[in-house]
């Protein structure tokens, strides 16, 4: 749910990184945090277990700049990817404006990707959203590893709708900002559409 504050001249949007366990959601956020100008970012919060697996969420507030005199702020969240944290994932999707699905390109994770994509669709539907209608982009992560599935095949399995998709290696930052920009743009375009009263 976009929050438009006329008093502070701000638009606030919520972006959620979704995907199977260990696909690189937190790594995406860490890279964005490291590479963003200190003026444009807040503190990154990670609610993680002792072994650094996401327990509840990671959070990173970002400012993108002004549009028609309104500051645009994006709140980036990750969900915990492990299957048994489903209750927490549902909570984090509340009020979401745009979703990035981070897929793990490795052969052995193909099924986990599909399962997580189904789970995303179901959990969004529970909140009254349709995955086919909200701003959505896909990132094929870990392209640097040797045992990866061809992008064409991943696309066929995960992206039948043909939403914007990107190859990435989040650990080295490849494709991270491209993915974020694509979803942010899509969120703002959606905002424009809804503002037009359609």
């Amino acid at each position, binding site marked *: *749910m976009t*929050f*438009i504050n006329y008093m502070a001249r701000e638009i606030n949007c919520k972006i959620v990184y979704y995907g199977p366990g260990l696909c690189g959601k937190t790594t995406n956020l860490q890279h964005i945090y490291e590479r963003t100008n200190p003026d444009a970012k807040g503190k990154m919060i990670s609610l993680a277990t002792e072994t650094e697996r996401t327990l509840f*969420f990671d959070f990173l507030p970002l400012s993108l700049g002004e549009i028609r005199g309104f500051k645009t702020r994006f709140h980036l969240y990750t969900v915990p990817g492990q299957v048994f944290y489903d209750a927490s994932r549902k909570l984090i999707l509340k*009020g979401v404006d745009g979703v990035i699905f981070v897929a793990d390109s490795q052969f052995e994770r193909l099924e986990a990707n599909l399962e997580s994509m189904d789970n995303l669709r179901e959990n969004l539907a529970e909140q009254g959203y349709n995955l086919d*209608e*909200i701003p959505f982009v896909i990132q094929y992560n870990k392209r640097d590893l040797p045992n990866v599935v061809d992008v064409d095949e991943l696309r066929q399995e995960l992206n039948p709708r043909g939403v914007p998709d990107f190859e990435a290696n989040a650990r080295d930052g490849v494709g991270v900002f491209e993915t974020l920009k694509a979803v942010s743009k899509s969120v703002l375009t959606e*905002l424009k559409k809804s*503002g037009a*009263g359609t």
Partner: protein
Amino acid sequence: MVNPQMVMYEEEFVQIQTIVDRLVKEANAKVVFIVDKNGQLIAASGDVEEIDTTSLASLTAGNIAATGGIAKLLKENEFATQFHEGENQNIHIQLVGNRVILVVIFDAKSSLGLVRLRVRKATDELNNVFEALVNKTQDPASDSPFAEITDDDIDSLFND
């Protein structure tokens, strides 16, 4: 529309800020702030310079969401009030109209009883303001400034 926006106008913002400012004084609190259930900070008052309100807002909303999840499992509607007691500071969290969260941080200069009393009064007042705000936002006559933004406006944000 699937995704209704929350909009804050000057008139309601001033009313909310007045309630929050008064609550800081009347409850002898250090900080009072209001967050929506998605973690966006709406208003804050008191010694806000000392704390990271953005992080606090997001964590408070996460906390409320998790507690709400527990309530659902127990077939409770909501746990509307939470209280966390620390060594030096305490935090009182109150759901207002199942829409926004009122957070009061206080120390030994105040007491839980006083905070609860003042929060109850403020909750009623805030409820009225947010009720009015929701009606105003749903009014089709209220136009959004974003109807006029162009693709170029959006593109220019991303030209580094």
